[in-house]
């Protein structure tokens, strides 16, 4: 008698936000009750949804929203790249810098000076606590720091777009967003 087929192990999905607004995670939640279908084949590893702080050694799909604005973003992004088989840039900030990149035309020191010293309240000095991650001089899309496997544009991508992408990917199809799901705004 042949041994029973071993249950297929669940995929591990990790998510995180670099410098973003968490709108893409909100869109992920917009898949609504379909998350139960997802839970049948996948479990969430590191994610704001699980509050797990670090990725497992082997994650199947990593979804990253937000752009790279500071040293901590670089650290988190590299950890994700090292842990995830497939890394996905989720949303406009991750794909092309998005709104945070609008500061790229400005001088960072001038920005900090104006925000904290000229317009701020309280101590009128630029925060310099050692725990604060250092800002980069330019905001970068994540593909300018590590290799990215897939991109889902949109600000944010709709829940339907994320669902279509994930179901295509998990089913082994080349993920494809048709007109209406592929949006930049």
């Amino acid at each position, binding site marked *: 008698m042949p041994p029973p087929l071993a249950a297929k192990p669940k995929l591990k999905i990790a998510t995180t936000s670099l410098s973003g607004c968490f709108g893409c995670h909100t869109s992920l939640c917009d898949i609504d009750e379909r998350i139960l279908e997802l839970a049948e084949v996948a479990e969430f590893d590191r994610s704001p949804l699980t509050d797990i702080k670090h990725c497992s050694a082997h994650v199947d799909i990593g979804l990253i929203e937000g752009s790279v604005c500071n040293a901590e973003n670089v650290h988190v992004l590299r950890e994700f790249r090292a842990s995830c088989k497939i890394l996905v840039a989720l949303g406009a900030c991750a794909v092309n810098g998005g709104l945070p990149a609008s500061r790229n*035309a400005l001088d960072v020191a001038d920005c900090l000076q104006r925000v904290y010293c000229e317009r701020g309240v309280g101590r009128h000095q630029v925060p310099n606590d050692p725990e604060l991650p250092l800002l980069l001089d330019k905001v970068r899309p994540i593909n300018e720091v590590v290799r990215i496997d897939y991109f889902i544009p949109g600000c944010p991508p709709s829940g339907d777009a994320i669902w279509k992408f994930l179901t295509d990917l998990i089913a082994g199809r080349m993920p494809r*967003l048709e007109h209406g799901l592929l949006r930049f705004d």
Partner: protein
Amino acid sequence: MNEIANRFNIDGGPVDFEPGQTILQAALAAGVFIPHLCAHPEFTPHGSCKLCTVTVNGRSGSACTIAAMPGMDVQSDTPELNSRRRVLLQMLFVEGHHFCPGCEKSGNCTLQALAYEMEMLTPHFAHFFPDRPVDASHPDVLLDLNRCVMCELCVRASRDFDGKNVFSLAGRGMASKIVVNSPTGLLGDSDLAVTDRAATICPVGAILPKRVGYKVPIGERLYDPIPISAQVGRLSGATAESGCCGCGSGASGGGCGATASATVAQKEA
């Protein structure tokens, strides 16, 4: 003796043409979409954006400038050509600052619509993040050079339609930019009027009529419900769009905010 039929093939399908038509004009008139950005039915083509590059009898060329000839074999909708078009679009996106979520033109933007059409998911290349001037000196029209793709449609419209020569292209290579013909170089000191064709023809969000933004909600704009490839009739000039800023209101006359604000300005004057 039989006359040679004015007919050629695009992607294996026959297209009839009128003598004098370019490949692009004949294709659009026949309902065949060839991606293009700087070509416009109202103006003489100059083949600068290269998005309409097709293969004609084995050689590459711009469909907007090559005259249609009987018996030509034109390839357009091929994976190789679309891949090249996608790369051109990606380069246009990284060269400027095209932040679609913050642009009033989103949904009405030809650059964006073509990127959707070519299924561009990422600009791919390292972004330039340029810091170019935003000229808000004109009471009715905004000029944001960060979004300019230098298609020169505003130049052609101002020169050939409005007879004003408000815009011109200056500089070479990376230093190329649109300049304004006024004593100060500012749009507010030029004789551009919001009713000018040049004020409404920009295919991206570089020249925008003021106080029109978000008149049509995002999601209901020109290219939101229907892809650009399915709007061949409008692109060929079969449906007039003169007088409208492409705001998606569908106005061909006085229905959109661009013409409405001009009317207000005229009344105030």
